[in-house]
């Protein structure tokens, strides 16, 4: 069994909507022992018994597919055991015998890959009769998970967001996460939100300023003063504060350098020195007896409260302190890092000191029932426990906690309260608030050692997204073989409506509010992701190409509208495992499958493969077709569905039986008064998409009329020029279907002689190249052929030679001219144009071609007059 390739696909993809790892496995030459081992391991991995010996021979074996399926399940199980549960998996046999493609869902990429490796290793080891150690493997995987996964605080917020259908994007390796898209987004970093003020955090770090502010709002705080030397500390303790006291550093949190319940000069001075290590200023404050509570305030409400106890053990009269600690650490909820619910108790220096103060050593045997502290502070990270007491907090204390958070300026705050009974007002028990913490840990509230877990992540999400908002902005995804870019650009123009800020990606680049900010091919998921991170975007339109879908899935989790223009004969067939048009349709239908339940797919009723995608759409369907009598369209309307079509010269929007003329084809410039059929179809698709997005009809009309076909709006898409009385069309269409559509459209432009400049990328099949040549040969009088920049694996000259083969079979072409360099080829063709000619230029690099045409146009008047040698 060999693992040939692994690929991570983070976005919705050909397998489904969840992120998957695709692995290619070669089982050629493997025998039954592997199959049996795989089945046996799958059965037992979930509940491993250490006494189990590998004895897979007794199991019935089921064939290679079964082996891979079992393997996939083992990988899922390992992920679950490591703490990152995933459930989807699928196995497919490839055309190569013995080679299988397995896809399984993942939560953390690195972890999932390690699970895959571990599964393969264990199956092979078991098949060979070697010993395996699943628990050890799981331990290792859990450690990986701990390092990579979001911490529990951040994770609770992310899960709460997902439960509300709010999209989440992880922004870095730490806990920075974007919730929502575009303008509707919020950022969080663990329990910090983008509403948490830097000044508030600074204030919370300064215990002295915090105290002053708390006093200002009437919150009971312990009497205390700041001192800067040890003598002063003791003097202040005795004269101004009153023993016993607490000594703590003025700045910082996390409980470092804090010593409580001090009554002697030595204790106070020693504590001063310890606190001094954290900073010059030290606070001496009255010690408040009582229990240690942490109240979590979110958006002006106390959403959780926890009673915290420091790490301790309870004697049983027999066991040593050390043994009691070990016993406590056996609790599976106790881990080594921050990642687990509780932390392990550690007998370190501080613990030894604390024990010493109580008169114990690790070997002492405490009396039965005696509580022995291992730490004095109640932090979870040092082994403390937390009991949920949310229901018991009395309204007066809650009010104080809320006021404390407000005056410091925190949207999310952990308020430390020390009092006897949290259900009685502080004033009745000399209870006090001792600290306000920014970015508090949520772990103790999410998974208390006792009591009810609280959905604090949900409370934070509720604050950021009130009233059921889901942080989404409308996203339209456009795919298909031809017309993608034109439809995307037109749709983006329509979606602007009155004053929306549209973020659009297409093969020409990324466009923000009409401004182009990148000149590369941006029809993939990374560019889409960049747009969704932009806080100004309130509508997004993404051209979604086949390549990106196969490589990494979609750059967004769901869309409001999916537009599929056509599949036709397909393009790029024979690449990446996509052999037929049906295969291609399945890939492109990914966007349809990602439509939100309240969204719509805009589908070409005249293309059977596209129309059939209706079955995959979770939302509603809007069909478009030039012919309003298209049977699929008609049936759909009869069932109450929506459609967009042309009747006579008018574009009609229909819903069920109701119809409304939107505007005439004449009024949509890109259709060339309706004469260019494929552009009319593109217009229908874009208008249907914008309609489905919710652009009001009057705005649709206004925007449609203002979308021109110039070089700036749709460069390289049906740009038409006049040169020396001849017509020149610059169009990027680069497959047979596009060429056919273009040829049909030529009737709209009066001409006598036809010329063409053409080529194709090297990764197309030989048959595709020849076929295009045939189409050229039948349609054009003179054909210029060039060698494109992207010849891939072909030899120079090979591509034009193959196309030439097809041209020579054609009926019309009299002259074939080879000009190898693309720019030279365009120039040579332009030089030939005379009155009555029609030249179709299909450029390799649109930007280069446009620049060339611009230069040419600016020089043409002179050239007509003077034929200068160049």
């Amino acid at each position, binding site marked *: 069994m060999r693992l040939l390739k692994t690929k991570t696909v983070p976005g919705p993809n050909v397998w489904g909507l969840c992120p998957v790892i695709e692995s290619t496995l070669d089982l050629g030459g493997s025998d039954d022992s592997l199959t049996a081992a795989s089945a046996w391991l799958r059965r037992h991995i979930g509940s491993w018994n250490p006494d189990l010996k590998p004895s897979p021979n007794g199991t019935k074996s089921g064939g290679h597919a079964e082996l891979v399926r079992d393997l996939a399940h083992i990988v899922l199980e390992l992920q679950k055991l490591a703490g990152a549960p995933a459930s989807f998996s699928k196995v497919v046999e490839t055309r190569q015998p013995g080679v299988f493609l397995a896809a399984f869902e993942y939560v953390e990429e690195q972890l999932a890959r390690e699970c895959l490796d571990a599964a393969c290793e264990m199956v092979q080891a078991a098949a060979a009769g070697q010993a395996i150690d699943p628990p050890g493997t799981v331990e290792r995987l859990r450690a990986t998970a701990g390092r990579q996964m979001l911490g529990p605080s951040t994770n609770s917020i992310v899960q709460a967001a997902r439960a509300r259908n709010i999209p989440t994007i992880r922004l870095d390796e730490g806990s920075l996460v974007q919730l929502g898209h575009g303008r509707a987004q919020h950022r969080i970093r663990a329990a910090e939100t983008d509403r948490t003020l*830097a000044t508030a955090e600074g204030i919370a770090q300064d215990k002295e300023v915090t105290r002053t502010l708390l006093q200002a709002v009437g919150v009971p705080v312990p009497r205390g003063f700041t001192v800067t030397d040890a003598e002063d500390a003791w003097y202040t303790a005795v004269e101004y504060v009153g023993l016993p006291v607490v000594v703590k550093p003025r700045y910082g949190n996390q409980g470092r350098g804090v010593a409580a319940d001090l009554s002697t000069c030595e204790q106070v001075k020693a504590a001063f020195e310890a606190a001094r290590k954290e900073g010059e200023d030290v606070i001496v404050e009255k010690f408040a007896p009582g229990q240690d509570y942490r109240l979590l305030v979110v958006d002006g409400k106390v959403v959780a409260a926890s009673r915290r106890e420091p790490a301790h053990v309870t004697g049983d009269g027999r066991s040593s302190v050390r043994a009691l600690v070990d016993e406590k650490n056996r609790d599976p909820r106790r881990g080594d890092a921050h990642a687990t619910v509780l932390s392990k108790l550690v007998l370190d220096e501080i613990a030894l000191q604390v024990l010493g103060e109580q008169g114990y050593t690790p070997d002492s045997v405490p009396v039965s029932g005696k509580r022995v502290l291992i730490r004095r502070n109640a932090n979870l990270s040092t082994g403390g426990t937390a009991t949920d007491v949310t229901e018991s907090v009395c309204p007066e204390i809650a009010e104080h906690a809320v006021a404390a958070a407000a005056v410091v300026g925190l949207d999310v705050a952990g308020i430390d309260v020390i009092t006897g009974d949290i259900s009685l007002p502080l004033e009745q028990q000399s209870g006090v608030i001792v600290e306000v913490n920014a970015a508090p840990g949520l772990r103790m509230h999410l998974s208390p050692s006792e009591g009810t877990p609280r959905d604090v992540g949900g409370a934070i999400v509720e604050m950021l997204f009130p009233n059921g908002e889901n942080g989404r902005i409308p996203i339209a995804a456009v795919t298909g073989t031809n017309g993608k870019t034109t439809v995307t650009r037109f749709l983006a123009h329509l979606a602007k409506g009155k004053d929306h800020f549209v973020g659009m990606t297409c093969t020409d680049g990324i466009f923000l509010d009409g401004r182009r900010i990148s000149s590369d091919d941006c029809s993939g998921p990374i560019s889409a992701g960049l747009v969704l991170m932009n*806080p100004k975007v309130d509508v997004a339109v993404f051209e979604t190409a086949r390549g990106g879908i196969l490589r990494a899935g979609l750059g967004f989790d769901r869309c409001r509208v999916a537009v599929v223009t056509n599949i036709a004969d397909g393009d790029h067939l024979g690449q990446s495992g996509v052999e037929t048009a049906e295969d291609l349709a399945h890939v492109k239908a990914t966007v349809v499958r990602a439509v939100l339940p309240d969204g719509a797919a805009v589908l070409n009723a005249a293309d059977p493969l596209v129309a059939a995608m209706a079955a995959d759409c979770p939302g509603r369907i809007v069909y478009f077709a030039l012919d309003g009598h298209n049977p699929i369209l008609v049936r759909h309307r009869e069932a109450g569905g929506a459609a967009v079509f042309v009747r006579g010269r008018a574009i009609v929007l229909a819903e069920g039986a109701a119809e409304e003329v939107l505007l005439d084809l004449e009024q949509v410039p890109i259709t060339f008064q309706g004469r260019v059929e494929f552009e009319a179809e593109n217009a229908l698709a874009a208008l249907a998409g914008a309609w489905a997005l919710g652009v009001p009809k009057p705005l649709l009309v206004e925007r449609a009329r203002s979308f021109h076909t110039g070089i700036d709006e749709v460069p390289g898409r049906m740009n038409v020029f006049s040169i020396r009385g001849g017509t020149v069309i610059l169009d990027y269409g680069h497959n047979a279907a596009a060429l056919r559509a273009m040829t049909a459209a030529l009737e709209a432009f009066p001409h006598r002689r036809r010329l063409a400049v053409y080529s194709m990328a090297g990764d197309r099949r030989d048959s595709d190249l020849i076929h295009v040549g045939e189409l050229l040969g039948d349609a054009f009088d003179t054909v210029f052929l060039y060698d494109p920049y992207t010849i891939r694996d072909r030899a120079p000259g090979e591509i034009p030679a193959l196309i030439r083969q097809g041209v020579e079979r054609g009926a019309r072409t009299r002259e074939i001219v080879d000009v190898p360099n693309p720019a030279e080829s365009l120039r040579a063709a332009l030089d030939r144009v005379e009155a009555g000619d029609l030249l179709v230029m299909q450029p390799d690099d649109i930007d280069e071609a446009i620049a060339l045409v611009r230069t040419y146009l600016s020089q043409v008047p002179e050239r007509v007059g003077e034929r200068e040698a160049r």
Partner: protein
Amino acid sequence: MSMAQVLWVRCFRGPSLWSREPVLAAAVRGTPEEAGALAQETLRLQVECGAHVSRASCAEGSEPGTQLAVVELEDEEVARRCFSAALEGCPVPADKVGPLREWADEIVLGPNTRALAEAARRRSIPVRRMGRGSLLILGYGIRQRRLWGARSDRTSAIAEMIGWDKPLAKEMLRSAGIPVPAGRLASDAADAVAAAAELGGPVVIKPESANHGRSVYLNLTDPAGIEAAFSAAQGEGATGQVLVERCVQGAEHRVLVVGGRVVAALRGDPLYATGDGVRSLRALVDEINLDPARGVEPECPLYPVEFDEVTLATLGRQGFTPETILAAGERALIQRNGNLKLDVTGDVHPANAGLCVLAAEAVGLDIAGIDLVAEDIAVPLPEQAGALLEVNPMPGFAMHVGIPVADLIVREVYPEGTDGRIPIAAVHGASAATVAREIHAALRARGVVAGALLLHPRQAVGLFEFSEQGLFERGLEFDQCDVLVLTDSECFEPGARVLAGCVGAGGLVLLPDSAPWRAELATLCSACVRTYAPGPGWETTVARMVDEELSGLG
């Protein structure tokens, strides 16, 4: 003089019986000359400590043989220590001043914070400093705003974190369509060389997350230089990774964005030294460092040139060391960046200003210092292959010489025409407590939060009660009030006079109708004066009158 001769010494943060301004007042037994010297020395020491104070005076005390010294103060603790030092002997010897100054250095307002406080005062916006740090609370109660250096109470903590994380900030900029240099993180020296090769052309090496432009190596072309720079930069950042970026050609600029607008821009050109055939580079640099604009103090716009690793590397690539003696007229490049001297605020092309504002927005900062590289800031960046490098939170002010940055920031939090004040009512005299309680109840019935600390974020009215003794000992918190109630009718006490002097022209003073000093009152303030009859239930009546007046001001 000694402590024994001091009857009392008090510090006042607001108006007191002795001054409208914050002062230290001390009653001492001694001659006028002694007291005068004490006052002047206290003043001088404060100035040595960096306080901006200038007034000190002396007068005869109420008891014979006593004097009253009144010295302007900026910080109470500093004033007290200076006073104590002056007591031990005027003038205080130099070896005692030094330690005093060092101690005060930690406490006195830093230049940025001072600039902000002064900008607020110029607009009559109340300012209080909280603690010893840079936190300033401007305004009162519900109208308060907070500033912490170049960071307002609208600055998100996450935005700051993103600004400090250079690779992450670049992602944000890229998503907003802002041109940034191509590049990536490298994890070891070989990786850095590979990254440079991917980019092609000269590269910049810098730590992932350091500040102040330290350890930034520009224009590296050879693998050896790249590796050396990698090692140096690696130590600075937190994760050991280093950014390798394409070196953008052009001059460095720093653009300051405040509240969605570009308010200042500086341009820096590479620093060269020109030889004279005699002096070494070290001597030439010493001369450069004589420029008063260069210094380590925060007030100085530029740092002194040091022969640190970056400078040595720059010189080394030209084949120079600090000891090299250049030929007459020969030039040596000393530093590529860090020389932001030229104010180009008026030259920034609107499109570039738009990009800078957008950059601050993309990261989420309301106040930011944008570092960008361009040949000419008056030409749109895309036309000249310029790029933005960084978005810095809490930018410095001092480098923008001549631009009132502090005023602009204060205007950002308090637009023209606002001053952050809330109506303040003060009650004076024996019955102050009772009347204040009534007023408080009346306000609470209307849902208005009132109190004496002026810090509560929902507080709409300041309400204070004063006794003569209290005024004598502690003075006032505020410098202006809107309503004053005087409850004593026998005499017009000094404290009451001070309060009356604080009532604004549009305010109201209430006094018992039997008070004979109404005319005198009118000379102290031009507010409206009304009387009330001190019969049974007068407290409630007065409270109602105050409540009415306050609701009118609301």
